[in-house]
């Protein structure tokens, strides 16, 4: 394998991983603060993708880039107020069941509205034709995905590390009970966290849509590997989600070259191995789950 081949494969791995990271960050944020296992997170990804498809074809990509994250933030708020808040204190099993039910409903609604077939979702004109990046030709859209993900991760890091809001979220992730005792409006905090999680899923959707394709099953197809990323990284660990996501992306992209037979199952193999060796995940805290 030549250097350029290796570098291109590395980029592809990062791109695949980037989408996982975005979806997994939302999942782990919601789990870490609210303690809710959101099986409907893949559905949020899918909403982002379909919403992006509609807006970009009607109003153009500029509007799509603006409206999809904002819209999904709103969807997240609605999701929390309308459903999740009643399940904070219910057993994990009930949370899984109710969000799983919602995921099915959203998936079937998408099938009703957009049809069951795969929809082509063209990337913006300028991002379609592969460009020379020094060691080979590469589709710009995939570079956009990597770049946007890096920006989102940095922004999230700044938000959590240097703002009062971030301090409260981190406190909430460590001890949600205590946050309430300190007189912080935990309800609003949690709602915003769900909104953020949904927004990340939406960003992942609008970027992942053109890179892969969309159909009603896309959400669930994205949910399973993303959840594995969260579990491998350690439930509730943001750093873990980022690193495990990239790891998974690279595992997928390199297995296609070296062991194509297992490329479809590589993420499950990696997950199984990590969890046997280290059941709490790479960055997980002992005792959670």
């Amino acid at each position, binding site marked *: 394998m030549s250097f350029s081949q290796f570098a291109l494969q590395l980029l592809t791995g990062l791109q695949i991983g980037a989408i996982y990271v975005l979806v997994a960050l939302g999942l782990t944020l919601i*789990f870490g603060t609210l303690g809710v296992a959101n099986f409907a997170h893949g559905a949020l990804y899918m909403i982002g993708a379909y919403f992006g498809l509609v807006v970009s074809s009607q109003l153009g990509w500029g509007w799509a880039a603006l409206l999809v994250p904002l819209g999904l933030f709103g969807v997240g708020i609605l999701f929390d107020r309308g459903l999740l808040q009643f399940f904070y204190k219910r057993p994990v*099993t009930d949370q*899984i069941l*109710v969000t799983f*039910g919602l995921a*099915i409903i959203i998936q079937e609604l998408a099938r009703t509205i957009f049809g069951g077939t795969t929809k082509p979702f063209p990337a913006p004109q300028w991002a379609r034709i592969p460009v020379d990046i020094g060691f080979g030709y590469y589709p710009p859209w995939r570079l956009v995905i990597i770049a946007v993900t890096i920006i989102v991760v940095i922004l999230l890091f700044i938000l959590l590390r240097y703002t009062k809001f971030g301090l409260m979220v981190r406190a909430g992730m460590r001890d949600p009970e205590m946050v309430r005792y300190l007189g912080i409006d935990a309800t609003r905090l949690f709602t915003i966290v769900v909104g953020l999680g949904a927004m990340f899923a939406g960003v992942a959707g609008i970027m992942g849509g053109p890179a892969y394709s969309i159909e009603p099953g896309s959400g669930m197809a994205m949910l*399973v590997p993303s959840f594995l990323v969260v579990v491998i990284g350690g439930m509730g660990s943001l750093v873990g989600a980022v690193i495990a996501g990239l790891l998974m992306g690279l595992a997928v992209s390199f297995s296609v070259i070296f062991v194509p037979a297992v490329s479809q199952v590589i993420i*499950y193999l990696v*997950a199984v191995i990590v969890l046997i060796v280290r059941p709490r995940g790479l960055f997980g805290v002992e005792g959670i789950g």
Partner: protein
Amino acid sequence: MKKQSLFARDSIYMLIAAIVIFSLRWTLPLLGGYSELATRMLIFSILVLGFDILVGLTGYLSFGHAAFWGIGAYICGYILLHFTQNILVAMILGVLIVSIIAFLLGIITLRRHGIYFAILTLAFAEMFYYLALAPLQKWTGGDNGLTGIKTPQLFGLELSGLAMYIFVGIWTLIALYTARRIKNSPYGLMLRAIKSNEERLTFTGINVFRYKVMAFLISGIFAGLAGTLFAAYETYVPTESLHWTLSGEIVIMSVIGGFGTLIGPMMGAAIVLYLENVLSAITDQWNLILGVIFMSFVIFLPGGVMSLSKQLRRLFSRDQVPANRTESQGGD
């Protein structure tokens, strides 16, 4: 005396179950179904029975039971297709291999609970699905599934139509009897203790892990048995047998029926298959309707159909009995 009355109650229970099971083929057409649907319902009821032993009793929610069903179906189908038409040979081998896999998966996945367990079981099932789709294509037929399976035979008797129905019915009765015996035994009590407080059970010096693996194994065997029957009945194994949607459907059936009641999930399976049959004739959106029904159950009636009478009684009686949600609660 007490033992005798228990035995009598057991006999009546099984007698009623037998009557329902063996009359379904003729009662169903009166309700707008078709007679072959009865066989399907019975096969799925075996599947959810096993699922209930795991989830209903121990509270461990598995999202990967499609794996056991699918592997059982594929192995049974493969044997019927290539080696012998003897259904018992195909079923025994299928269930045997499924139980080995269930045992191994149990050991790996049961080290975690709650959400971890759900995700791990889901991941394993997805792994088998993708394995069947591409790397094992040569044996599984890839996208097309296993087609062209010949009608299985039982000692020279062709099993199709009514004969198959009776064969499946007998297995359903055996499954129900076994599940009921497990549930009502001290062993079942132990499993239920895992659900109510696993930690406390551990502190009493009991090897909880062993019980959990056994519950997982038993439920895997039920699912595998149902899978082998499905392959024999359909004479076809679709790829969807391993897909997560099937695992989800099992969960939906059990929730609608009511976890932990055995009869409930069986009813849930019948209800879902009946609705699927009736609604899909009227509308394309029956999956959407099913999703809405499922969610309404999770939110408003977590105990499923089986808790309906209890809920109604509570509604109409003066004394306020506190809501009993334990039926739906699980391992966290």
